[in-house]
């Protein structure tokens, strides 16, 4: 119960507002049943833990924390209660508290993957980039089929810290594990572009395009990279190819807003390239 007394009204507000949005009929019914069970067996820690978790799902932060405190009082060995608290704090945007309870939990359960991942997210929110990267790396090593999101989150932290080589290595690790996913490759291309490794970016892009029956969006992106590399002739040719690819689409696909926008963009870039070539300007046109 100690935790509760430390909360300021503002923290409570933060806790309560976003979570109130989750009411659910079935869960509410479960809650009633659990409360009835607790009345019959008031010293059953497991029931408090289950009810606390339901309270969390229903947005009853105060009630959830009270139940978790009760679990700790009844069964001090139930360390996982800190994991439940951490989820609640993280959802409630109180990462400092989440970090505290996760650190405590991981001291006793250092290989718990979910806890490591929760702490990675917590550290990222607290701006503890190095710690977050470390936690992601630990978690990724423990998972045999991690979600691409995890590789992306770690790479983003690395790229934010200008650790481009590490970001690329991490993304390639994901590609080796999960396949040449468009999500991983697109981020790798962004990093390659930041490093001005144009050919590496283009090679990755070509790999994505090869997976897709339709090439037009990849051709436009290719042209953008070529322009950044100041390879205007190639960019021009690629844009012409992109417009031809768009033109060859069936009418119903060509009329899609996204494709119309793509065509407008391709034409604008093509026009800009032509103008800069005529004027001999060396500056690359804006590519959005």
């Amino acid at each position: 119960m100690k935790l509760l007394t430390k909360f300021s009204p503002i923290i409570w507000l933060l806790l309560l507002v976003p979570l109130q949005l989750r009411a659910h009929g079935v869960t509410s019914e479960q809650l009633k049943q659990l409360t009835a069970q607790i009345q019959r067996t008031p010293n059953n820690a497991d029931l408090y833990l289950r009810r606390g978790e339901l309270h969390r799902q229903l947005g009853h932060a105060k009630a959830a924390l009270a139940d978790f405190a009760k679990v700790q009082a009844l069964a001090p060995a139930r360390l996982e209660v800190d994991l439940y608290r951490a989820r609640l704090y993280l959802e409630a945007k109180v990462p400092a508290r989440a970090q505290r309870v996760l650190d405590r939990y991981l001291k006793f359960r250092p290989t718990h993957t979910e806890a490591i991942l929760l702490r990675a997210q917590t550290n990222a929110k607290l701006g503890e980039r190095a710690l977050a990267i470390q936690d992601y790396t630990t978690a990724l090593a423990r998972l045999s089929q991690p979600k691409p999101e995890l590789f992306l989150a770690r790479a983003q932290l690395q790229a934010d810290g200008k650790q481009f080589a590490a970001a690329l290595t991490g993304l390639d690790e994901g590609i080796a594990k999960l396949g040449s996913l468009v999500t991983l490759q697109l981020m790798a291309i962004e990093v390659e572009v930041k490093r001005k490794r144009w050919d590496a970016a283009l090679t990755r892009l070509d790999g994505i395009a090869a997976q897709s029956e339709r090439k037009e969006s990849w051709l436009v992106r290719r042209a953008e990279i070529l322009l950044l590399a100041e390879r205007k002739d190639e960019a021009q040719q690629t844009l012409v190819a992109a417009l031809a690819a768009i033109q060859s689409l069936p009418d119903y696909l060509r009329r899609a807003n996204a494709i119309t926008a793509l065509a407008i963009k391709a034409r604008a870039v093509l026009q800009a390239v032509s103008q800069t070539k005529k004027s001999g300007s060396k500056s690359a046109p804006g590519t959005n």
Partner: protein
Amino acid sequence: MKVFFSIHPVVKRLLVAVVLSVPICAQTSLLPAEQTRYTTLPSAAPNATGSSVIRGPYLQTGTPHSVIVRWRTDAPTDSRVSYGDSPNRLSFATTSHTITTEHILKLSNLSPNTKYYYAVGTSSQTLAGGEESYAFVTAPSAAKPTRIWVLGDAGTYTDDQRRVRDAYVKFTGTRATDLWLMLGDNAYVDGKDDEYQRAVFDLYPTFLRQSVLWPTIGNHDTAGSINPPEDLPYYQMFTLPRNAEAGGLASGTEDYYSFDYGNIHFVCLDSMTSEVKPNSPMLKWLTSDLAANTKQWLIAYWHHPPYTKGSHDSDAEYVEIAMREHVLPILESYGVDLVLSGHSHSYERSFLINGHYGFSSTFSGQHKKNGGSGRPTESGAYTKPTLGPSAHEGAVYIVAGSSGQASGGALNHPAMFISLSNLGSMVLDVDGNRMEAKFLRETGLVADHFTIIKGGPTLAQVSNTSAASYVPHHIAVDGLVAAFGTNFSTSAKAAPALPLPTNLNGTTVRVKDAAGQERAAPLLFVSPSQVNYQLPPGTVAGSATITINNANVPVASESISIAMTAPGLFTADATGKGWAAASIQRVKNGVSKYESVASLNAALNQFVPHPIDLSVEGEDVFLLLYGTGIRHRGALPEVKVLVAGIEMPVTFAGSQGQYIGVDQINVRLPRSLTGRGEVNVTLVVQNKPANQVKIKLK
């Protein structure tokens, strides 16, 4: 706040000892297998090992050339699927020597749209199958008539769930189900393995072994966790395409994926465990996947509904809001046709809509691409002009979360054509450019149905106006309406007698009101460019859709707002301007005499006023105005009439009583108006002004 991402599911098999060293795209979850063509059939020998099938077989990740067969045994064995073109001729086999209780074998090199019979077992014994009901049809490589069964929030393991299933079994009869979708909350309460066993595997054994199931994950499949562990039963029991094995673009995760079936591209999204915000990985993948799509139809599904007022509220719950704000713009820009979700335990089905990403209070007629029922026999099918996934031509959004329980709710989301708190499931039939959708109740009743036709003609615009003033959209309950447009009828015809017909010269008008009720309107007059009708009695105020049909073909439709009052005054020349279509009543000594305010001068070919004499001693003079949209006025003081800018005493305002839809206002004219000449008459009802008319005073 939604936690940023989830731990990825591993479809690791509990008892699989060997992991394949094949590339990721070859399904790491599969057991290592060898394919055999038999010269002699394996014997279906008695089960010497004593093992038996306790789950399945069930089919996963079907493609035109492959399908994954899974089953569970009560004791570890090796695995074999024998298959062929008849139950007695299972000429092929795929075998894995890995000893396991979770058997996952991929049958490859199959022919598209071909029926295969099969049996599962060990390398030496058949444990199940080899009979008529153990058969599947591979996905087609091109369009074919496709039946899809959709279950949402089914997994209650109750009689309700069974009734919904049994109704579909009866409905579909011998028509095979080509594939089926589960919209999440597939097994209550926590998606545990034993809960799945009861609510899915024991409930639908025949469907599971005959048709490929494509599930999405709901909150009860993760026990409420948005960061579920790798060993979550959902992840372990399903083998879903993470590497574009069945079409689409690789997502790298089973949480969200896409697949093709014939001319349909399906997108399964994850509203439970994946981050939903601009540029989040799932949405980046979605954008790329849709940009690569070439299929004619686009169907998307996930658990949390973007529009609902059932047991959940899409105005109040952030996952629903996020899906609506961030996912719908992408889907609509790539031409989605149908969006399916559950979570609310109700059936809620929208109009054909587009571009609504805000709260329900901001939904309006402008979001309706077609505000009719979508039923060919009523306001007509929803037609989309383009034969393919073209942007912003409208989509139908469905909450179909009542396959296991019905939980009510306000059920009043304005985007919905119909909202029901009934048990049921959805049946989709796609044939070429036509989709027929039905909500099948547990009773066997089809409680809703609609049709989408792609590449068809769109309905023309129509302008519905007050029949008195011709002010567009100035329409009130029980009022008279004049609609203007084209192709309404082949010729002009007036209603011959009372009661008014609802079909005149082959023309009908249907009004779908805010309560979801659709009614045929009584018709006064039809012509190729104009229809006059009364709003059908019983129509309630609020948004409504009016559809005009000619020879049973919908030709025009408009979404309007119907008010309780919308005053309009008839004029003598039926232009909505000029001399009032009114009478003068003179009462003296209890005797009434009537005269008209204006009449047609044939020589001038125009209406001319009759100056009203107010000078007769002992005579009360009343102006009787005729209009429409007035009768639901509230208290009499809500009705004000100004003559020459002076408020006159109103002695009556209400239904005229004799003529359908016509209202009457009686105004006493004082002698003090004598000598005013031509004056304006202004009517205001509940602060709403009617069109201004004129009278002439002597």
